[in-house]
């Protein structure tokens, strides 16, 4: 496993990364390889275009939002550390990790998972999912047969369901309450936990 060590030695701050994200060195190594594969021209960072070359992502209706999630506000690049940190959202919950009150919120906690999802809606980062933001998402996810009016009524309904304070938008708290159990039991094989199942094998 000499190659493994040499790969890992190329990653700066490996220890911190492992501690922060909870990935094992094997995960990190695997992700690093993927990172390098995505990184056309060995820039050391990824640009949106690099993500654009992922073929399946191009047909993902919300692909651009997912790509956008990797880039913090106003930035055009993402380095390996941030890349891994974003992916760490998709690790399964650590059930048996002793929760120390002083330790920072782990990246893969429920709340940060939810926040990640929330930010996929909240593109203008105002802490609320407005009706228009919801409409946009719906528009991309629904097929063309649905009329705008139907979309709007669905959006209205969605907001009504969740909206507690009556501001006609979904705040993060409201989002969290609505999704109290959504992300805990996704029955399909495509669950957040699956990611790591895969990662382990990769």
């Amino acid at each position, binding site marked *: 496993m000499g190659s493994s060590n040499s790969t890992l030695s190329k990653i700066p701050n490996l220890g911190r990364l492992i501690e922060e994200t909870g990935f094992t060195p094997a995960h990190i190594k695997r*992700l690093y390889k*993927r990172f390098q594969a*995505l990184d056309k021209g060995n820039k050391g960072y990824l640009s949106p*275009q690099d*993500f*654009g*070359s*992922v*073929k*399946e*992502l*191009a*047909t*993902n*209706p*919300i*692909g651009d*939002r*997912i790509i956008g999630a990797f880039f913090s506000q106003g930035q055009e690049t993402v380095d390996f550390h941030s890349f891994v940190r974003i*992916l760490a959202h998709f690790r399964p919950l650590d059930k048996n990790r002793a929760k120390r009150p002083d330790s920072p919120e782990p990246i893969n906690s429920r709340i940060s998972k939810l926040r990640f*999802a929330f930010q996929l809606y909240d*593109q*203008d980062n105002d802490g609320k999912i407005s009706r*228009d933001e919801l*409409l*946009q*998402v719906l*528009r*991309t*996810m*629904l*097929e*063309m*047969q*649905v*009329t*705008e*009016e*139907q*979309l709007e*009524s*669905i959006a209205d*309904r*969605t907001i009504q369901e969740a909206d507690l304070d009556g501001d006609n938008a979904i705040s993060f708290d409201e989002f969290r309450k*609505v*999704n109290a159990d*959504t*992300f805990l039991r*996704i*029955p*399909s*094989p*495509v669950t957040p936990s*699956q*990611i790591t*199942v*895969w*990662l382990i*094998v*990769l």
Partner: protein
Amino acid sequence: MDDSISCKCNWTSKYLVCLVIFLSGALWSSRDVLSNAAGATTKAPPVNSPAWTQVSPKPQTQPLPVFTINYPRIQVPFEITLWILLASFAKIGFNMYHKITIWIPESCLLISVGLVVGGIMYAVHGMPPAVLTSNVFFLYMLPPIVLDSSYFMPTRPFFENVGTVLWFAVVGTLWNSLGIGVSLYGVCQIEALGLKDINLQENLLFASIISAVDPVAVLAVFEDISINEQLYIVVFGECLFNDAVTVALYNILSFVATMPEVETVDVFLGMARFVVVGLGGLFFGFLFGFAAAFTTRFTAHVREIEPFFVFMFSYLAYLVAELFSLSSIMAIVTCALTMKYYVEENVAQRSCTTIRHVVKMLGTMSETLIFFFLGVATITTDHEWNWGYILFTLLFAFVWRALGVFVLTQIINPFRTIPFNFKDQFGLAYGGLRGAICFALVFLLPQNITCRNLFITATIVVILFTVFIQGISIRPLVECMKVRRTNRKLGTINVEIHKRLMEHTIAGIEDICGQWSHYYWKDKFKKFNDRVLRKILIRDNRAESSIVALYKKLELQNALELLGPAPSDLSAAPSLMDLQTKRNFPASDLRNMHELLSKNMYKIRQRTVEYTKKSALPNDSKVREILIRRHISIRHSFRVGSFPRTGVSKRHRFLSLPPRKNMESRSPPSRPSYTSENLLRAPIIFRHGTWIPVATLDLLILCSSIVLSAAELNNTIKQIIFRSRLFSTLFGFVRSASYTLPPGLASLDNAEGPGLEDKQSWKMTLHPCSGSRGTDLELEPLSATSSVSQLQRFSSRQERPLQNRYHQPERREHELGQQTSREPIAEGLWGQPQRDSWTAHRYSRSRDEHRPGGGNLPPSAPTGWAQEPLIQKGGGSQNHLNRRPHWRPHNPHGPQSPGQVD
């Protein structure tokens, strides 16, 4: 409700019965159809040879006949045609009332119809017709089925699960054959059954026949309830490869069974042969697959026969493998898998569709016929019934299958990323229906096998049992056991939406993590593929083509440029079930919403399922649709907080503008329309030293042709020209764009002048040159129509050439996201119904809002627009155009900026 259903049922069944009676009446005299069909190869003596001599006249003695009937001449093809028609009509019948096929698999229904027809034939004749006794099955009916399955094999999941698939197909089949064979041999030793004369070889031979699974019905059920992908692909792949294994095994064993004595050497020879047969099939598959791919490289000028190569080469692979007694199924499967990727890149979109359609058609037809004949044969064959043997066969077939799945899963599970749980194993075991292959193989048994008839009976019983009992019960069982699904319905709309978003997200994250492309060998192959194979096999060898390319372009374009009042929604179709109540939602509306959501949400990885549908043709328009949608949504997302609020502009958006004069004559002070306003106000972005109305260009790209007023044209065309450089970088196919301006364009000289707007509307068309790799931007004056209705007609007429024009020899057409995906746009933009409402609306709007001031400023410079330098400089640029009608964009002295032109 119930009444209507039963009515429909009654009607359907009446229709079916009539049909069956009619057709079987036509067929009753043709019981030997298949023996005759096979007559060419088997030289089966025609039963009705006296009829032949009776009908054929003797020319010397008789006068010239005025009217003759020469039935024997057409008998074989005629009867085959009737059989196929009968089976197809039966299929139509089932699908008339949809719920039948949900609860009872189509194969069951086909067998039932076959039973009825067989019964009629039996009653009329008293003797069985010859059914499928020959090579017909293996030479003509099996190849289409296998080609269909392998051509539509979902590649990605298949290669993800290839180990498991092969494990189950090869080891599982061997396991079943051995297990069933040996235990049946054990049963035969029981004195009471009187089966002492069946020896081990024959038992093994029979077991190898009976262990071929063919779960068409199960796959249909799995698709329908969208079972988890892993289970689906394993069942799918297993049935495909297990056919190959079974046939190979059968060939060996049928040889062995006729041998008087079997020695140890023969066992090893048999094993060696098994390997040789498999690998040989693989080899010929690759060979002809690459040959097909290579051939289609050169078919650019013979598009008519392009699809033909796919069929001929795959059939050739099949036949050649058969010639050397190799696994022909293996050969055709490999051939299809190999060539598909390359062929589909080489051939035109149309040929691609044809290939898929014909593959699907042939496959479905063969399958239908086989199940139909199965029913017929059940009635009309000589049976030899032995309770003990048949019941034990049933028992062992089920037990060994279950055991095999259980044991093999335990072995393979540690190697799988997603292990099969117990429910999956149950689905896998219970889904082991027997079907076409068993049926055909057992009829192929050599006559010298002692218990041939018993084997036939037992096989038919097993098939009928599994298809009927298991096939019908698997849906309720799987639903009841809650086997993992890919998605499911949910409680609140919130949850439904969020969950779906999450699923998309995770799918996206997986793609980013490269879940599929991580395997070492896959990477290696990809490199090899890119470096060598693609260069040899694909004509237009560019690494990433089609969708990704278009997507990247759009992405780049959109990321770079801020976009304006873009089309807010393409789904402007008038809804039949408008949900008008906004604030309080009655229960029915909620139901509607749920229905809408569950039906219309993009399904994750839906392509996989769609491509493999047994009942329907694949449809990849969705991918394109997503692209276009995303393009639009991207535009939206760039304009934070500036979503089009007015329901009007959201719902109706038309880019074609009626001649202004008419508008004015009807509502004099009107401004043209809000659409033209949008078009002109579209963000004019300073880039490459020029002003660009991005929206216009984008629409041009998406729709290929738009109708513009003279002023809009004036604005648009020069910007297109200015942007040509950007164009040519973004869109490779505009590499040498030549803009041919029609003579009428000269009148655009005074584009700003008031005299212009009475002139004409212009149709601007972006279409590819036929010869070189280039694109013509064609401008075509529309004669000033005198009424809106005329314009409507024009607009709707416009749609048709839209599709014809895209016969692009150079590129696959869908790179422009057109054809199927274009249709909804075209409808949205030019569809008749909307146009009416739009017109009405526009009138009202223009009267209400724009009466003052709008007057005679046709380009309708709204606020902000008039300040743009474009209008002032427009005329100059236009002059420039006129001086050089064939302006080449790569001209270094091309108009870099309006200033330069002036």
